[in-house]
């Protein structure tokens, strides 16, 4: 890989001072799990890396009873955090599914959220695809069995982060620090569709850092779960998955947030499923109806129609699992 300089930033201020305004020229490195792959494949050739592992790596209680997670927290630390597991089980269960043990030992929360897409055309140096400044999304007429079933393109990646999906379901906000201060962005506003931003998957600017994820206190009656469907149980990305966050009163769903993953270029909130579930008694039937609503607008590509069914199943099972019911 191309030579670069390395800055071991002692704190957020130092790290921000080392960044630049040109995309992919100076990059933050946390665990490096995604970044080293990108560099080895010549997809990015930064002139400088800034180590952000010494920034906040703690999980702390917020005054309102939620949790504030530093971006430098490793996935293994999140997995082993008892409060996080009790309060936000879907987030922790998804962290447990990432990669392999060694990847979870090194990979960070910030890195998981900001990792680049796994589309094999994007990852292959030989394909000068839309996302890399080319003229074509090769997935349209190519091998698109793992690509998006939602969204209008022009790029058809699925967003690679599974924690992102849980962040939307729990209504997380992200703190972005930049040269002129910090801003708070709702998780739902953070991720961007390719027709808004083709060259990145989120609003983070090259001179900014995602420093914290703040999860609001769980509402009374909140029950949540995630369900992933995979080919392989290790070292793979899910075919489709869903997170359900239900506010329950007895067996009645007062309100729901349903978010699907690996189906669109961003974590895909299923508003129709949420409406279909609100006010209903939770059952296999109502969960199934919500799941059907969740995939109503799907527009599969030539080789991924099967994902519509997989996503529907993931939604049904996430809802049932959240409600503590038997997953069929």
């Amino acid at each position: 890989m191309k030579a670069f300089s390395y800055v071991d930033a002692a704190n957020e201020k130092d790290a921000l001072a080392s960044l630049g305004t040109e995309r992919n020229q100076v990059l933050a490195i946390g665990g490096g799990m995604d970044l080293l792959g990108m560099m080895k494949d010549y997809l990015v050739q930064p002139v400088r890396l800034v180590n952000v592992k010494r920034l906040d790596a703690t999980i702390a209680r917020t005054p309102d009873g939620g949790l504030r997670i530093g971006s430098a927290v490793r996935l293994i630390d999140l997995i082993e955090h008892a409060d996080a597991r009790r309060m936000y089980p879907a987030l922790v269960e998804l962290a447990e599914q990432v990669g392999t043990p060694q990847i979870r030992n090194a990979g960070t929360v910030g890195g998981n959220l900001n990792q680049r897409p796994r589309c094999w055309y994007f990852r292959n140096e030989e394909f000068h695809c839309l996302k890399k400044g080319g003229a074509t999304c090769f997935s349209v007429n190519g091998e698109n069995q793992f690509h998006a079933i939602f969204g209008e393109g022009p790029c058809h990646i699925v967003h690679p982060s599974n924690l992102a999906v849980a962040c939307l379901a729990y209504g997380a906000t992200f703190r972005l620090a930049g040269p002129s201060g910090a801003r708070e962005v709702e998780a739902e506003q953070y991720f961007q569709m390719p027709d808004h931003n083709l060259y990145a998957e989120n609003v983070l600017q090259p001179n900014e850092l995602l420093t914290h994820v703040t999860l609001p206190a769980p509402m009374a009656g909140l029950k949540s779960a995630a369900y992933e469907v995979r080919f392989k149980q290790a070292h793979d990305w899910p075919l489709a998955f869903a997170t359900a966050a239900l506010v329950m009163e007895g067996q009645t769903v007062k309100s729901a947030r349903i978010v699907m993953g690996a189906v669109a270029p961003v974590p895909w909130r299923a508003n129709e499923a949420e409406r279909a579930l609100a006010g209903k008694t939770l059952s296999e039937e109502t969960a199934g109806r919500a799941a059907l609503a969740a995939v109503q607008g799907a527009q599969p590509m030539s080789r991924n129609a099967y994902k519509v069914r997989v996503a529907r199943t993931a939604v049904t099972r996430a809802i049932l699992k959240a409600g503590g019911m038997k997953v069929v």
Partner: protein
Amino acid sequence: MKVTITVNGTPYTRDVEPRTLLAYFLREHCGLTGTHVGCDTSSCGCCVAVLDGQTAVKTCTMFAVQADGHEILTVEGLAAGGALHPIQQAFSDQHGLHCGYCTPGMMLTTVALLKHTPAPTEAQIREGLAGNLCRCTGYNNIVKAVQQAADVLRQPAAATK
């Protein structure tokens, strides 16, 4: 960049380029070739070493500069005083290797696994080794070796190991 990494108890201070991978720091700068490079993409686990006595990491997907000031355990650091480490002995006893290429990574992952989970179930062993591929597919004997090592290391006499 000057880095100091303590490998198997010995501090190695070397001037490295920031792009030097930890795997090549160990192999070429320290001369410790027991750490193998298989896939070079964090998939296969041949390059696993233990960071700071606790954590299995893939040294092909880590820059040496990221390990500056830290401690690394490699396969060369397992045997002590001419005696095999209980994990090495168990891999030998249970025929937990065919070609041996994956074995250092398997054993170092096992060091960290047994530190966190001293009495693992078979499922926990298989999950714990999910990031280590054996191209000879000798997984059953590898699992038996980890079980034997866990049994031996749990005995009081092995507490100093």
